[in-house]
């Protein structure tokens, strides 16, 4: 009789005993961390994941500098906060255009650390040369991430290991900028010491687009030391001579390894060499494009920073400022506007020797002006662009399709682009002119503008020569010789701004040179009225930007990070002013 009890009891007992197995996860293809470096593909895959945190490019980078004012200044947009409200530490990473890259880059750094620690003892099949090449990539990448962080945050903690999930943070400290930069230089040196191989060299092969190369490592070194010697970051760790040594060697290396400025114009479509360069896909043109050091993402200027006369345009986007327009020299190399007579920058001081004509302000300017900016009376293909008040592309305060400043962005844009096809160009992350500029920036401080410095390999160059090399491609005459350091600095900084107009470099230059509050308190635009006999030009200024304050020189750490470090270490890690 007792047998009947058997079934339900069996079931219940079964539940209580053997069921633990029943709830186990059968294999789902995941592995543990220990298993990664036992397999070639997983190891390569891990290196690939180290690349996950590369910076992206921004078409609207200029809108966050004195180069432009964005038309998409609608309420609650990034630009609305940037121009009107300002950002707080907790809001910063939501609103700022490149977010709060703190945790992203540190995640990349940790992965590089894990890779570098593990690769030597990896049992995965790989040749020594492969392992060395992969390692060099990881070193370069780690340096690249640290460079991005130090540019944005200044002092940061220096991690060369994997803390894992249980680590005591009580005695954590931030490293100085000098220490971080030293690490960046060391990492690059470790990478550069690697013999060239298929996995790490100056050039990349087909299908290797995006990887770290010796060129990137040299560019990182050049940029890192230049930043470290900039007013914002210079903590005395590096002498100017050390900086000069690095920047000149970097330049020399690039020049010896076949890097040169793009010099092919496209007269058929009305583009000079400077304009043409940005229109090519650097990956496709790798054999010809010796200027691009790293990166390149295609943009759709026609649509996202377009003219209202193009069908399908969504907004005028980054509208170049009058400040930027004023910064372009005349084609003869003279400075048209040397300053302003009033606090609102509405009355320019005109350099009469330059040939600047207030009533024809867009005549005879630096060729790069015409490649970068659409202005009243300029042409896109066969269409004329009129930015005067009732013109076809007239200025407007309310309609995001129309310019807010009187100008539209032309750089990267191809006149043929429209709703049906996008021929627009590519924004680069690193390109050669910077290497010249970095050298020039250090050289004039170390040796003055004109002293020739031996680059090795039968090359020698002065600060002025380096800048002139960049100007030559644009078709601009050389700087005059005999400039004092102060005068040279002024012209050099302007030159750097012009060459990199609307690129993100200006955003960081304003900070590292500590000229943010001076230059970006407000910007100006140009309101043009059409008269029977021509145009009248009226400058106007925008409201003050709250983001010109000195605290914006460095990014804030997020509030939660600061709170955690306060609790853990008793020290306030927040950057000044936040």
């Amino acid at each position: 009789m007792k047998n009947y009890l058997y079934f339900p009891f069996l079931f219940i007992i079964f539940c209580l005993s053997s069921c633990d197995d029943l709830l186990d996860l059968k294999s789902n293809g995941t592995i543990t961390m220990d298993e990664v470096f036992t397999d070639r593909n997983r190891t390569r895959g891990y290196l690939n994941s180290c690349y996950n945190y590369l910076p992206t490019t921004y078409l609207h980078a200029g809108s966050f500098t004195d180069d432009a004012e964005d038309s998409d200044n609608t309420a609650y947009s990034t630009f609305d906060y940037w121009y009107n409200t300002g950002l707080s530490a907790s809001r910063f990473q939501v609103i700022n255009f490149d977010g709060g890259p703190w945790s992203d880059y540190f995640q990349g750094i940790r992965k590089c650390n894990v890779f570098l620690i593990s690769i030597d003892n990896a049992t995965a099949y790989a040749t020594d040369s492969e392992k060395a090449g992969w390692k060099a990539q990881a070193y370069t990448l780690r340096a690249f991430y640290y460079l991005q962080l130090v540019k944005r945050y200044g002092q940061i903690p220096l991690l060369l290991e994997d803390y894992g999930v249980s680590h005591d943070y009580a005695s954590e400290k931030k490293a100085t900028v000098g220490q971080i930069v030293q690490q960046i230089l060391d990492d690059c040196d470790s990478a550069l010491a690697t013999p060239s191989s298929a996995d790490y060299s100056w050039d990349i092969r087909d299908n290797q687009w995006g990887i770290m190369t010796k060129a990137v490592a040299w560019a990182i070194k050049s940029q890192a030391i230049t930043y470290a010697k900039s007013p914002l970051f210079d903590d005395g760790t590096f002498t100017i001579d050390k900086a000069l040594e690095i920047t000149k060697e970097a330049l020399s290396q690039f020049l010896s390894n076949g890097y040169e400025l793009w010099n092919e114009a496209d007269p058929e479509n009305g583009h000079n060499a400077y304009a043409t360069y940005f229109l090519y896909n650097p990956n496709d043109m790798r054999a010809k494009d010796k200027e691009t050091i790293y990166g390149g993402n295609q943009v759709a200027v026609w649509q996202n920073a377009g003219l209202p006369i193009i069908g399908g345009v969504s907004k005028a986007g980054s509208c170049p400022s009058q400040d930027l327009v004023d910064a372009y020299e005349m084609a003869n190399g003279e400075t048209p506007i040397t300053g302003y007579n009033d606090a609102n920058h509405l009355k320019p001081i005109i350099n009469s020797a330059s040939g600047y004509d207030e009533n024809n302000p867009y005549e005879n300017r630096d060729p790069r002006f015409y490649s970068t900016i659409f202005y009243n009376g300029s042409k896109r293909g066969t269409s004329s662009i009129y930015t005067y008040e009732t013109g076809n592309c007239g200025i407007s305060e309310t309609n995001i399709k129309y310019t807010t400043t009187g100008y539209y962005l032309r750089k990267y844009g191809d006149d043929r682009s429209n709703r049906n096809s996008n021929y627009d160009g590519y924004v680069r992350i690193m390109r050669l002119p910077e290497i010249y500029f970095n050298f020039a920036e250090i050289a004039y401080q170390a040796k003055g503008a004109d002293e020739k410095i031996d680059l090795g390999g039968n090359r020698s160059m002065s600060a002025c020569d380096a800048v002139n090399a960049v100007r030559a491609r644009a078709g601009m005459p050389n700087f005059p010789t005999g400039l004092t350091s102060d005068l040279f600095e002024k012209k050099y900084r302007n030159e750097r701004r012009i060459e990199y107009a609307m690129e993100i470099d200006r955003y960081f230059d304003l900070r590292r040179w500590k000229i943010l509050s001076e230059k970006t308190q407000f910007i100006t635009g140009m309101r043009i009225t059409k008269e029977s006999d021509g145009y009248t030009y009226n400058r106007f200024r925008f409201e003050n930007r709250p983001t010109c304050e000195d605290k914006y020189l460095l990014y804030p750490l997020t509030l939660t990070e600061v709170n955690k470090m306060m609790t853990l270490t008793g020290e306030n890690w927040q950057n000044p002013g936040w």
Partner: protein
Amino acid sequence: MIYKKTISIMLFFLMIMNLQLKAQGIRTEVSGTVTNKYGEPLSGAIISSENDKGLYITDFNGKYSFTVEENVSKITFALIGYKSQTKFVDKVIDVVLEEDAHATSENINFGFTKQSRDVLSNAVSSVSGQTLGKSLMSRLQGTFSGRLSGLTTVEETFQPLYEDVNMYIRGFSTYHGGTAGVVIDGILYDNYSHDVLFRISPEEVESVTVLKDGASQALYGLRGGKGLIVITTKRGIPGKLKVNVNIDETIQEPSYKPYFINSSTYASLRNQAAYNDGLGKNYFFSDEQIEKFNSKDDPLYPNTNWYNMLMRNLSHQQRVAVDATGGSDIVQYYANVNMIHQGGFWHTDQKDYNANNSMYRFNMRGNIDVKITPYLSGYANMAGNIIRRHDPAGVAGSGNDNIYSMLYYMPSTLYGPLTPTVYDAEGNVIDNGGEVITTTKIGSSPYGMLNRSGYYTQTNTNIYSQAGLNLDMSFVTPGLSIGGNVGYLSYITAVLTTTQDYARYTRDDDWNSLSFTQHGTTQNTDLAYGKSTALYGYLSYKGEVNYARNFDLHHLKSNLFGIYQNFNDNTGNVGSQYDFKRIYSGLEVQYDYDKRYAVKFDLGYSGSDYFPSGHRFLWTPGVSVAWIASNEAFVKESLPWLSLAKPRLSYGITGNDDIGLDRYGYLDQVKTSGGGKIGYLGYYTNESSFGNSSLRPEEIKKYNIGLDLGFANQLTLSVDFFKEKMDNGVFRSTSFIPSYQGISLGAFPAINFAEYENKGYEIELNYSKRINKDMALRIGGFLNYNKNIIKNIGESPNEDDYAYPYRSEGFPYGQSFGYLVDYSNGNGMFNFQKEIEASPEYSFGTPRLGDLKYQDLNGDNIIDEKDQAPIGNGSLPRYYFGFSGDFSYKNWELSFLFQGVADYYRNFTRLVSNESIYDGRYSDSHLNAWTEERWLNDEKISYPAISTSKSTSSEYNDYFNKDCSFIRLKNLELAYTLPQSKALKLGAKSIKIILGGQNLFTIDKLKTRDMVVEGSYGAFPIYRMYRLGIRAQF
């Protein structure tokens, strides 16, 4: 192995057949009538022998007749609302049942077990399906509001056909939030419980029980923590065939219509906003233009009411339900077929298809009980439904709310919805027009979403079946039985999405001509068809042993069970690639002595695959005791008016495995695949999370103390106080982990350390009296109160100069923070320039005249995040109440239900951001916005100065924290039963005509036409419904 199993199964059946022969004995034929004290026959009275066996029911005339087995000596007569009576078996037994206001004979269903209310020691509340049926809501969960004490319902959305209600038992039991679990006929459905509930029609439901205290939830182990809603479907009862037919026609209308700003007002407000921003008096529109909008006859200056253009005022709902029940003492059945159709509110304008919503739902159920042999019985529940739902594709499927909210973003000054046909001077068409108009800022017009975006049709088929066997083992020892069942639920959705896009046109800036330019890259496209499917299924196995026996005055009932449940999710949701597997088992012992001292002991042991081996099982004991003082002889003698007195105490541990983690939070998740940023590396190894190998289920300790009192068999008072504590809550252990260490904080292992507490009370009062033969009344209500606090989640406090360094710890779940408005000047706004100058600086912009004046709580003369203070009190109402009444006089019945909440705040700061989203959205509130003129003229100002962009008033603040307490007439019903003679003439035993209403009115404190007390802002409002129904019984 298989042989062994087969042989044992065959042996098993042989034994049963053998028993069948043995069990044949002498039976007694019993018959009689059950009436009340007025001599009225009572139909539906349940007659049972000892140990709940031999169920029978009285027929329409109160008569019964059946045979009882030889060993039965006593039978019990029970009917809800009456005191049960036990009689010795005789040939004829006529019974007069006495009314019982305290419903002591009600059988409470806990899901796995049952207990009679008179010895109940737990905190539970229950309601009958019949009462729920008074509600006009088509979803079962919609009918719960205000009917069950301890249950807080929050109307989540009133999107037509998707009306959903969130259900919380005693608020939040954990800081993960989350809603109550659902048990249907003894099977727990924890995933998609809302969906599962939706698939049962109120008609099929016998009763709903809410398990509130830990001891009653203990058997549900690690799924019991959030409380349970136990649904019991109707079963057949022996007797003649009984057929009920319900037919309803319901009309639905939005309970309120938001104020739609006309074009001249819009234009003036837009100008006013620009003026406030310092952009001049006529920044957007000139005075002449506003005048032209006002004249309303100039086609160039339209006044487009997008709401009226695209919304209908009424929609319909039809329901037909037929159920049949009956059977013999061998087979009993209950069958139900019902159908509902619900229409939508859209006014569409598309010849090729109609995207307006509609829904058809067809439900079927057959519950059958069979006595296979005198010792072996079985049952099968078979239910299924098909739902066909049709919607505009608008914004991916459930776009109704998106379309609705866009109605109010469309400026009334905008010409629309389509571009006009253009003729030349000779009257020839030169442009067909008919293109959808938007603005440069508005991407999609609601007209386009409704008429040019395609439609979406989904068909859900749902099958629910359950079958079980029960073997009476009284031949081993009286009172012993064993059983088991298998339950299966499958849900399949087939979706047809047709999509279409349309070109957007914007009106050119020149107001003096009606010309349009194409905007953006979209083009008019033809309908494209797409299909997809999703499905999920539950499979549950259960085995149980029951032992119930009375020894004199000792009453003992016990149950031992084990359940294995597998949930297979193929809906594509996160984590759904893995089956969910859980095991529940437990033991319950109910004991009472002479119905005076009752104790119930529960012990659950359950496991979940969320946790690692060795930590995945949880013991959940529970114990509850009650002293039924009113059954003591001395109480009966000395306090005869005290018809019920029962203090109760309970304690239980419940668990929770719904901890907000991905599946398998205990494992590292590292996976290699193709892809990645760098093509030449070929592979991509992703570390997505790190596991905690000692992760455990959360345990919640729950205490309850309660008292039931009854007076003169008329008034019942029930009070319960509870406290719930958790101290091993699962939380990401990242509170003290900075993010620079490089592991994404979201990938960090979660650990058991968080502490949380929830407490509150419920009071229930009920008065019930049959005044005379013709008249009866019942009136009653309940009040819930709950308050929770997050005690420890390892929060790193902000610096000391923050007015409130902690933002979660010490506050209830869902606490908001924002600025407090300084009302010291009366209206809380900057009324003149000097006030702004005297004010601390704002870190988030410069205040203008008419902006809100915030308090500098930390006194550092800067208004910034450091000054933010808690606003409101979490995301749930603290008080929730319902009260209802039923009156009957002769053939007339009137019933009502009010439901409401108190101490409930919601924030409407979003009204401010609306001013600058797209082209500005204005509503009722903005009409009384601050302007200098109003201020100087002392006019009513109930809103800060409006703006074209973000203003400082749009920071989260308490000015817009509104008291959303409300009381709503949820339900009102008037019914008339035809005299029996007339009904019989029509061929029915009874016919009832019903007039009903739902959500008829709401009293709240908002006093505006643009905010609602519940639901999300800018979403479909609750709708009001009117019903005409007929109930016939055959």
